[in-house]
């Protein structure tokens, strides 16, 4: 069972900081190692900023998963932005339609144990990542 979940809106760069703090609290609570904490917080920061910069804002659902044999943090980012036309291209390092470095999406995938993305042009983007102990 999921022991705790919390939803945060992402509407400003202050909210990106709030997302990092929430993910840190949960990562510590489930006992992730320092390196794993740092990885999932960094991935969350990238995806929160993507939702803000490219998706026009959105929200994250953070879940602290605390089951026998499975402990970790799962994060679902959703926005109602323009969506991603070519997901494979967007996952490549250096791909960007904006002002960034194009590391966010591919980087977030590398920093996570689980990564899934659903996006349709005109409908928005949903990304789920998880880091397990």
């Amino acid at each position, binding site marked *: 069972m999921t022991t705790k979940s919390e939803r945060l809106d992402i509407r*400003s*760069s*202050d909210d*990106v*900081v709030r997302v*990092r*703090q929430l993910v*840190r609290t949960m990562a510590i609570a489930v006992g992730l190692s*320092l*390196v794993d*904490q*740092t*990885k999932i*917080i*960094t991935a969350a*920061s*990238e995806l929160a*900023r993507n939702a803000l910069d490219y998706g026009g804002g959105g929200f994250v659902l953070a879940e602290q998963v605390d089951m026998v044999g499975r402990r970790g943090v799962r994060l679902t980012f959703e926005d109602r932005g323009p969506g991603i036309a070519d997901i494979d291209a967007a996952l490549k*390092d250096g791909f960007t339609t904006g002002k*960034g*470095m194009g*590391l*966010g999406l*591919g*980087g977030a995938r*590398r*920093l996570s144990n689980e990564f899934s993305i659903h996006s349709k042009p005109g409908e928005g983007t949903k990304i789920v990542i998880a880091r397990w102990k």
Partner: protein
Amino acid sequence: MDRIPILKFGNALLVTIQVDMHDRLATALEEDLTSKIVEANAKGVLIDISALEIVDSFIGRMLDNIAAVSRILDADTVVVGMRPAVAITLVELGLSLTGVKTALNVERGMALIQARLRTSDLDDDDEE
């Protein structure tokens, strides 16, 4: 808006980042440092990130930009105190900060800057 304080230390500037920076604060630091380098005629910039629990691509790019701009303004940038977990994560993220000099702590970072200053002093003497 909050600002990150920039201290003058001889002909170097010292910045200690102690808060979880939101993006506007990082951008403001970049701008403040640039004008301060000129104003203080600084030859070195030391950025202490030992309190930072993460460095994502935005903060990484800020560090890269500061190093690039200060180089053009004839100042060296040294980033010091990066936590090991942050270094591991940065590499996996795909950011290698190739344009940024790093040192383990403030002392070593300052030594790097001073060493460069001594060399340029010698160069100046040669010209005289």
